[in-house]
């Protein structure tokens, strides 16, 4: 019998047509995870469902004595969805999960998948307010980028989970916008997450206050250390360093 490698559970009765899906998965500076976690808490979003896969590591999150899947969907009752996780996906799961998200989003009529991540910036220490760049999969979304004043990520390589999600969205013809904030590669970066949230505020007309996030920045940096360490190991195995290399030939 063929193994069922990807399942979305609990979303059957949820109308996600026209929704914007924010994705926060461990990557550079944990920017997406910190940002989505803050958005879920600020907007008091409710847990809707989760992703299950045989390729997801054997981990269950226990919160208030209740076991939960490590990759979960949250919703605000409107057209905003969040997919977030506090585990680092192994390379095989990255493909399965990215493909599954892209195909599911397309089949359910999700308007836009928005990946939130960091752009490893060597001189991040000198940057007071990280800039946010965007990459979009289609001309309509690229126009939104321009209107929202988001700088286009003009040239370069993306490596890792968000690159796979972007590629799978292209394959599934699902609109995708990936936002990248200048961030520390190796350390949790709540400042970069705050920049991403401010960008989302103007892009999606959200009203998420980043003051509390910045006030709690040191606490987040202490508590996210172990996840960052695991993410560092994953980024090293995925050869993330290629993003920093000088360009090859593109024709």
């Amino acid at each position, binding site marked *: 019998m063929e193994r069922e490698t990807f399942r979305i559970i609990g979303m059957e009765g949820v109308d996600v047509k026209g929704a914007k899906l924010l994705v926060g998965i461990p990557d550079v500076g944990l920017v997406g995870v910190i940002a989505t976690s803050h958005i879920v808490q600020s907007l008091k979003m409710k847990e809707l469902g989760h992703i299950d896969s045989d390729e997801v590591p054997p981990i269950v999150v226990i919160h208030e004595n209740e076991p939960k899947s490590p990759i979960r969907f949250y919703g605000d009752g409107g057209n905003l969805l969040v997919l977030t996780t506090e585990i680092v996906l192994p390379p095989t799961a990255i493909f399965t999960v990215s493909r599954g998200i892209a195909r599911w989003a397309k089949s359910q009529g999700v308007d836009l998948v928005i990946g939130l991540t960091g752009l490893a910036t060597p001189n991040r220490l000198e940057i007071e307010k990280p800039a946010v760049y965007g990459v979009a999969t289609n001309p309509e979304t690229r126009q939104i980028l321009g209107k929202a004043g988001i700088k286009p990520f003009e040239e370069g390589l993306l490596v890792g989970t968000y690159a796979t999600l972007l590629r799978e969205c292209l394959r599934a013809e699902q609109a995708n916008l990936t936002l990248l904030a200048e961030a520390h590669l190796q350390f949790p970066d709540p400042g970069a997450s705050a920049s991403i949230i401010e960008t989302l505020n103007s892009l999606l007309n959200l009203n998420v206050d980043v003051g509390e996030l910045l006030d709690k920045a040191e606490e987040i940096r*202490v508590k996210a250390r172990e996840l960052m360490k695991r993410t560092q190991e994953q980024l*090293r195995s995925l050869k993330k360093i290629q993003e920093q290399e000088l360009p090859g030939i593109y024709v």
Partner: protein
Amino acid sequence: MAERRRKSLFDIFEEIVGHIDRVIEELVGIEICESPLCDVSKRELKPLVHVYETEDEVIVTIDLPYVRKEDIKLSASEDTLKIEAPIRERVKLSRWGPYQREVEFEYFRRTIKLPSNVEPERAKAKFKDGILQVFLPKKIYGYRIAVE
């Protein structure tokens, strides 16, 4: 002139094991002796560290939230860097994982093995936004050859 200490057989063995561990870590991207970044009994946290080297120096960047610059104790030898710093506000974690009670941390402490031998007396450090950067010039071996 500083007296050069003769390396014992144990030192040499430890160096070889350390080198093999680093090579395996680099190849497969996993830590050999996996351990959490905290020691509850000592109330210590290990800071996140990033080490890289250029042609001339080893640069160590250390994430030190809740730390004041004046509290940092930093020392280096030819091949190690030690950092110790009290945490400004005690960090509390309640009922997490194996510790279903409140645990507190008071110190960051870590010894970092350097990838190349350095000249510790020429090291420089700077601290900004809770991030410490240490620049350790590499020890120079060999002779300059004039190009005619």
